[in-house]
């Protein structure tokens, strides 16, 4: 069976009355890895948050669908159960809820009533993935993200990704704040997920991560739009030359949102 399709068409998004996304078009299919690159403040997190349904972002027009189903009509948890996953740039800390309890609850809500995973099976699965990600097994009993270092939080996002096995994952700056060893581990996790049934949208402003995960498609975001798309060679050129050539090519002075093209 072919993988899923996440389809974003002419997406416009506002936050507190200010338009941030100004018509984003993108299609991510199972088996594909896309990278969105772009300087800070160009709307990358806005795109990922509005796909997931962050309460602060308001979609004013356009559509997002997953395998033909209207994602924008779904509550956040329904989007997740439909197969979407977002590794967040700033994961929340939740005191008093252990990582393990949280993950079991998340996994069980996907599996549905009557199909819950047994505790033993869950522990085995979690231990295995934690070992794969070279995480301290004690992290299972720590409160969710509370007191985690930046790197631990990122690793924990990838742990969730591996446990929940979504159809389409969006990774928002999963590489920021990681040292090279952690970056390798995180990349290993993402590569492990690669396959026909898994599509991925990696948001980053460094080429670094893409040295370990070769993307099929690379997009550049500026002023709340995708302004350029290409193959892996685009990322390499950005690494070597920066963004200025694109700005020049497109006549963009200030790439951040809020500046008219």
């Amino acid at each position: 069976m072919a993988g899923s399709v996440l389809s974003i068409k002419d997406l416009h998004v506002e936050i507190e009355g200010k338009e941030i996304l100004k018509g984003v078009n993108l299609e991510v299919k199972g088996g594909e890895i896309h990278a969105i690159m772009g300087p800070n403040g160009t709307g990358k997190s806005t795109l990922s948050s509005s796909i997931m349904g962050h309460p602060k972002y308001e979609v004013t027009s356009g559509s997002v669908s997953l395998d033909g189903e209207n994602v924008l009509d779904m509550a956040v948890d329904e989007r997740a159960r439909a197969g979407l996953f977002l590794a967040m740039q700033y994961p929340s800390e939740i005191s008093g809820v252990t990582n393990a309890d949280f993950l079991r609850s998340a996994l069980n809500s996907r599996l549905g009533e009557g199909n819950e995973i047994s505790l033993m099976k869950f522990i085995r699965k979690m231990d295995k993935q934690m070992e794969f990600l070279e995480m301290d097994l004690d992290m299972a009993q720590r409160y969710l993200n509370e007191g985690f270092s930046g790197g631990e939080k990122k690793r924990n996002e990838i742990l969730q990704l591996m446990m929940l096995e979504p159809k389409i994952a969006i990774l928002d700056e999963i590489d920021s704040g990681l040292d090279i060893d952690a970056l390798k581990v995180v990349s290993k996790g993402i590569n492990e997920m690669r396959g026909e049934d898994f599509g991925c949208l990696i948001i980053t402003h460094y080429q670094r991560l893409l040295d370990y995960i070769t993307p099929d498609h690379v997009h550049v975001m500026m002023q709340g739009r995708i302004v350029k798309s290409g193959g892996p060679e685009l990322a390499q050129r950005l690494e070597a030359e920066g963004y200025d050539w694109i700005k020049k090519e497109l006549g963009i002075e200030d790439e951040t949102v809020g500046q008219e093209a």
Partner: protein
Amino acid sequence: MTTETKWPFDQEYITSFSKEMSEPAWLTELRVQSLEKAEDLPMPKPDKTKINKWNFTQFEKLLVKSDVFSSIDELPEEVKALVDQEAKENSLYVQRNNKPAYLQLSKEMQEQGVVFTDIFTAAREYSDLLKKYFMTAVKTDENRLTALHAAFVNGGAFLYVPKNVQIKNPIQAIFLHDDAEANLFNHVLVVAEDNSSLTYVENYISTTGAANGLVNIVTEAIAGANAKIQYGAVDTLAAGLTTYVNRRGHAGRDARIEWALGLMNDGNTISENVTNLVGDGSYGDTKMVMVGRGEQTQNFTTSIIHFGKNSEGYILKHGVVKDSATSIFNGIGKIEHGASKSNAEQESRVLMLSEKARGDANPILLIDEDDVTAGHAASVGRVDPLQLYYLMSRGIPKTEAERLVIHGFLAPVVNELPIEGVKKQLVEVIERKVK
């Protein structure tokens, strides 16, 4: 001299009640004198809660008739669930309304000279010991309710651990309220002599919803030099009961008193918890959780008062308020002059689950000594929408996400309760109350 009292029972009644219970003369006397004093004493004044319309003084019955339980198997299911079935050796006292209904004492305790019994038996058989401590940490003339308490005591437990005795297993008391006409004037006296240690856990549990009565509880926890008391409690009294509960600790030199309190009554409640750090190097730690729901009004005042040098006091209170309930959280850290090198820390957090709920967290530091450290943190807020978003983004439905956040919020105290059954019950009660 007899005056016309405004109390439901007069001196004569109290005297004959006391005699009928074969109480020692000193206790009869104390009851009568306390009743006399009550008239002139003021009501307690919980900060920010008006209680002048609450009924703490008028009631019909001082005693209701209840049957005893001849074995653990006979206990009602709700009570059985609180008892650790694995630990059949544990010491357990069950009181049914005003009636001592079941008692089991571990071999360990008997051999080491520990006294654990109901308050009436204590008065008869351990009169001198009881007299030495009874109404000493809480004085009869502090306010009208402490006086009425002393006059009307109609239940309770006495736990006495002699010098140098360490009791490892938790000692449990369950105060079952299953008669709608019952009123509770319950006295719990826990004494840990020098160098001893104990863990005591109590449950106040209503299994009748139809109640319309009053509850006046006084607890005294007295820790001698270098003694340690871990005191756990879960209160789940019915909506129809108006409760005054005063739990007080007295810590001697290098003594430790640790409270873990789950205050889950459904009725109007005034809860006062004071730890007096009297000895140098003493340590007090109060952890509390509460849930307010329906129309109930509750006031939780928690104080740690430092008299001893190098004393440390920690207060951690987490509360959830929903519906149109009102909950006031007063936290007081007081360092008396001379209590140098002491540390007073407190944290109060209130989570509001509805628009109409009212929560108020008032941290107060009263410091009369220069060479000390102190700190406080307080907040009143709502469930963080970003936390819910994060949990939901993993597929967890909103109601479950809220449940996780609320349980997480209350976990630091719930996890402190030393008996699994009681911990489990508290989790279930919280579940029921916040739903």
